[in-house]
């Protein structure tokens, strides 16, 4: 198993005739991903690396029964491409494009959320990104720009805000004999479609994932929230890393979201939050493989001895539910989320939606 993409992924490339789109189409096809269609308005009928091009996502969906799309279109048009994919019924929309205005991302985010409904945190459609490297399930499919040669199948789920830092760590994992279920780059923008908690929920629910590596960075408080969520709802071992320990306040460090403002969003705060939640924190990237290997070994020996897991064993059942509950409802007052979160466990189970694959 894996999360979000696998050998059944049927991929549309939006912006396939562009420089980046064409190059990465070739890479994704070479990795074995089933790229079934490309979309560039006005270029319908062409072929790029053997992939048929259509004028619209709707047409591509109708002709190819795709279930996933990846977006390489330039920033001014990227949000519209997300809307187009969502309207055409694409289940998983991965936006690689960097530089999308936050206002546009917010619109696309709420569109996708409205189509999904608030009660389906594992459901579809789902947006990943923007400004992200995409995802790869080793040996099965690659959607985005992650290099295929650094990954290998195995038990570790990887989630990260970064691109090349992810490659660095994934390569170190692979070199240490620690393969991956799926590597997921969620992106470094202030507003993103899939966040750490969504990713943790997915990995927690995935049968093959035994441990999770989470890589955050300065800015916002997604890491602090992830730490809280892990403590309450994740039974699998997690190892965290936070980039930007030496970043000065008030300066944007490359990623639009990577900025310490008003004294909040520092690496020190985030590392402390993980540690307070009992999550091992790597000081430097090269500590990650040993830390996760250790955590996996301990989990396996606990399981052999029949001892209960370190964190709440029942958490997995409610994790998906909680992820739904914490979403601020678009039209309801914020208090609604709190009420839903305190619902008794039995009711939660009954009300839990069927998980889509």
């Amino acid at each position, binding site marked *: 198993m894996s999360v979000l993409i696998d050998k059944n992924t049927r991929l549309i490339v939006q912006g396939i005739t562009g420089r980046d789109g064409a190059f990465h189409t070739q890479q994704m096809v070479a990795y074995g991903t089933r790229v079934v269609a490309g979309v560039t308005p006005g270029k319908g009928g062409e072929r790029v690396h053997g992939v048929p091009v259509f004028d619209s996502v709707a047409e591509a969906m109708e002709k190819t029964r795709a279930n996933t799309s990846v977006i390489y279109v330039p920033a001014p048009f990227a949000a519209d491409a997300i809307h187009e994919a969502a309207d055409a019924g694409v289940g998983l929309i991965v936006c690689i494009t960097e530089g999308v205005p936050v206002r546009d991302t917010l619109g696309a985010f709420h569109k996708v959320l409205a189509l999904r409904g608030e009660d389906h945190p594992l459901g579809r459609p789902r947006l990943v990104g923007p400004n992200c490297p995409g995802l790869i399930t080793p040996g099965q499919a690659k959607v985005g720009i992650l*290099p295929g040669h650094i990954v290998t199948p195995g038990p570790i789920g990887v989630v990260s805000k970064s691109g090349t830092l992810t490659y660095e760590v994934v390569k170190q994992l692979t070199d240490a004999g620690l393969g991956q279920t799926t590597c997921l780059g969620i992106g470094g923008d202030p507003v993103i479609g899939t966040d750490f908690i969504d990713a943790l929920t997915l990995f927690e629910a995935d049968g093959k994932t035994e441990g999770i590596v989470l890589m955050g960075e300065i800015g916002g408080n997604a890491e602090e929230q992830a730490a809280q969520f892990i403590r309450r709802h994740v039974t699998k071992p997690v190892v965290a890393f936070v980039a930007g320990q030496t970043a000065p306040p008030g300066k944007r460090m490359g990623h639009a979201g990577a900025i310490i403002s008003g004294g909040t969003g520092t690496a020190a705060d985030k590392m402390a939050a993980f540690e307070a939640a009992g999550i091992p924190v790597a000081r430097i990237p090269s500590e990650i493989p040993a830390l996760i290997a250790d955590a996996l070994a301990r989990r396996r020996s606990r399981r052999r001895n029949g001892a209960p897991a370190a964190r709440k064993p029942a958490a997995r059942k409610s994790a998906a539910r909680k992820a739904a509950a914490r979403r601020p409802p678009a039209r309801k007052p914020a208090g609604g989320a709190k009420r839903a979160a305190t619902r008794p466990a039995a009711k939660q189970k009954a009300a839990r939606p069927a998980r889509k694959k």
Partner: protein
Amino acid sequence: MNLHEYQGRELFARYGLPVLPGQVAGSPEEARDIAEQIGSTVVIKAQVQAGGRGKAGGVKLAHTPEEAFERARDILALTIKGLPVHRVLVAQAADIAREYYLSIVTDREAHLPLIMLSAEGGVDIEEVARTAPGKILRHHIPREGLRPYVARDLMMKVFPDFAQAQQAAAILLKLNEVYTDGDCSLAEINPLAVTPAGKVLALDAKVILDDNAEFRHPDWAHWRDPAEETAGARLAREKGLSYVKLDGDIGCVVNGAGLAMATMDLIKHYGGEPANFLDIGGSSNPEKVTAALKIITGDSHARAVLFNIFGGITRCDDVANGIVTSLKSSPLTVPLVIRLTGTNEEKARQILSDFGLGATTSMDEAVRMVVARAQEVTA
């Protein structure tokens, strides 16, 4: 992009927010002329992007044009939190009966804009958030937008007087237009002041623009302040590199923001101090590499330079070519350590070794090496 107060006021005025007459001045003479035009008591405010301007002596009242000249001269000579004052705002002074705080900011976690409102205005709102969070009213703006009745209800919770609440509600609706149409990530009025006559005014303007939206706001270009941009920062912007100068002595050129931050952290971890953050991005245009080296050697006190490249989309051979081309035209006077791995690594190694340069594959090893080299240079 963070706007100066005078630029924020310009934006506010465009949307009809009540700001008092005023203009920006670059010299005491200009300040005097503006004060004369205004014809009443003026406030002279240093235009630097730092909090605590008042405490640093950067905000003064002037009752006559001559006094405006003197105050402006004093303030223009100041350096506030390391930032030299190049300009002052000269604006009509207002009598203030009460001060409030009002802002709209993007709430990342809720995926909605957030209104923050407080009767504790005129002070550092982060301080209020820390010491008395209950004194800040928070309200998310739903997707369908901000209704006038919602704005009125909010203001009636904070303003004791209905007429004032109504004025403040109108201000909030306009501020929301500034925030939304203007692609702001923050639009803040602090203080939102009430005069003894009961008029509600925006007496300060703090605006942060979403840089990603610049393509649909061609007018933003004229707000960029060349005086606040170093030569290195300008070159970085022109070449599409992300660059932040730091105080250390080890320059680093990295592809990817996360890896660049992690590289800085690792330099510190092994006992060095990074001289900069520099992300050459995904593409591996040799021109970018040349520009990166130029920025680092020109703008910092680098005693050694590290390249840390993880080739994905970035091709290692392109980076190697960039390094060689750059060194041929302007040799580096400080030690260089290169770490390359990934796409076309072997080709890159060949290009570098033909030029007499070596490269390592391990990030830890490369960082330890560059820290040692920098220390040798110092010793």
